């Protein structure tokens, strides 16, 4: 029993990380229906910028975090302007391919400069190293709590932004019909840039948090979590912000439980099998509304 609880805690922490990346994924998907493959790599850049901040620049944790967020924000907007915007009127798959291209570009440019080897992140700040012992066998670390709290807070904040602010309404309008949005006086380009800015900033923050939490970063670190986060976003209902969180938790939880009970070599298979089962039962994800197209 205790072990189960501990495993659930582990799962929740892992899930929060997927959720953090998935939030950005889902936002960007929400607005231009693009599976932004480069998202996982922006997360990687965030981790490296944070690393450089804490080592080369000798900044403290929060300053480095801010630096990573700002860099990723700018990077995300830049990528959108250069690689995606010219393709607005093209098929979604054309943009998907440039996204894949950008993903490789970020990975291998980074690898060219820092090499493929993993790097150890600077030691955890003290508040993250603290552990809370609930019983002898149930332990929560400060880092786990922090990551969980950050992902939930950001989810709520984003949800509020999208639901209730002017820019949030503009984002939804653009996602549903860009031309009609233009006719309401919405600046579509700015709105899309804004979405990329937020999504990429989130990825940057996630990068630093993951770096700190796992203590290991490398240029290809974005691929796997990026993929899992994408899956999480779809599982929750892509484009739906709370769905990203739910999907992240679910995948983190399943992965941990499967691995924890002796089937870790089947972990990914189980995760994907569950994903497929859920999609068959609920074809637009857990929180997605299965709205029948009106004809």
């Amino acid at each position, binding site marked *: 029993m205790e072990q189960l609880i501990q495993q659930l805690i582990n799962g929740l922490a892992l899930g929060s990380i997927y959720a953090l990346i998935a939030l950005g994924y889902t936002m960007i998907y929400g607005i231009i229906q693009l599976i932004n493959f480069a998202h996982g790599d922006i997360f990687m850049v965030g981790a490296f910028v944070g690393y450089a901040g804490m080592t080369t620049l000798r900044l403290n944790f929060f300053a480095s975090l801010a630096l990573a967020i700002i860099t990723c924000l700018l990077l995300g907007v830049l990528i959108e302007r250069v690689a995606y915007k010219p393709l607005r009127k093209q098929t979604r798959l054309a943009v998907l391919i440039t996204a894949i291209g950008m993903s490789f570009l970020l990975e291998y440019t980074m690898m060219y400069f820092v090499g493929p080897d993993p790097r150890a992140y600077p030691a955890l700040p003290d508040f993250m190293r603290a552990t809370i012992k609930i019983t002898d066998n149930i332990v929560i670390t400060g880092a786990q709590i922090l990551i969980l709290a950050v992902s939930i807070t950001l989810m709520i904040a984003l949800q509020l932004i999208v639901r209730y602010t002017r820019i949030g309404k503009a984002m939804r*309008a653009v996602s*549903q*019909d860009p031309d009609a*949005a233009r*006719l309401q*006086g919405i600046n579509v380009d700015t709105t899309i840039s804004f979405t990329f800015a937020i999504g990429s900033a989130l990825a940057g923050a996630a990068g630093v948090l993951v770096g700190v939490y796992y203590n290991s970063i490398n240029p290809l670190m974005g691929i796997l979590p990026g993929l899992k986060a994408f899956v999480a976003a779809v599982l929750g209902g892509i484009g739906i912000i709370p769905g990203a969180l739910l999907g992240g938790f679910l995948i983190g939880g399943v992965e941990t439980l499967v691995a924890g009970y002796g089937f870790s070599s089947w972990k990914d298979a189980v995760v994907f099998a569950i994903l497929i089962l859920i999609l068959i039962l609920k074809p637009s994800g857990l929180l997605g509304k299965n*709205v029948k197209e009106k004809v």
Partner: protein
Amino acid sequence: MFEIHDLQVRYGAIEALKGISLEVNEGEIVTLIGANGAGKTTTLRTSSGLERAYRGKIVLNGADITRAPAQSRVKKGLVQVPEGRRVFPKMSVLENLQLGAYLHHDKAKNTKTLEQVFQRFPRLADRRRQLAGTLSGGEQQMLAMGRALMNQPKVLLLDEPSMGLAPLLVKEIFSIIRAINEAGTTVLLVEQNAHMALQIAHRAYVIETGTIVLSGKASELADSDEVKQAYLGG
């Protein structure tokens, strides 16, 4: 108030507009009629900045807006109700209307405009929480009109507002257009329903495959044999 000079528009190799000119004076309803594919929609889309002019000039209140981005045209009071309604399908009726007032920050004023819109279209008030995508065709058309009104337009561009509407509503829509016009909004109306359009318009242009072929007072055109033959069913 609103002028188009020698406007040419191309879609790739297709020349949709071959140099048309028209003007709408303040307080007028001007209608643009013509067969399917004549270029009516293209004229409106280019006017509001959704398509790029290949050549020619678009002038609003004396200012050249040919290259201005769409949102700045809306800010200047040039508002379009697009062909095919184009409501935001996954937003509620209310949210659609609120988006119409996107550039207007005066809350009290917006509330008042909203009330007016609901008065004009009571059905929208009934359905304010329904997702716009699930409205019937006619309901969506009302929503699109309502959304434009939320923008408090000076010049309103209407693209086939009567399409798909029940007879009762067609009449209603046209009387609303007239009312809107009487309340001070200048209207450029694109219509297939030439009958009704010519009834409420002051002046009219007839467009055929990208060229203006006729223009004049609406009542005169309505009586002209050419127009009768081609657009009014004999």
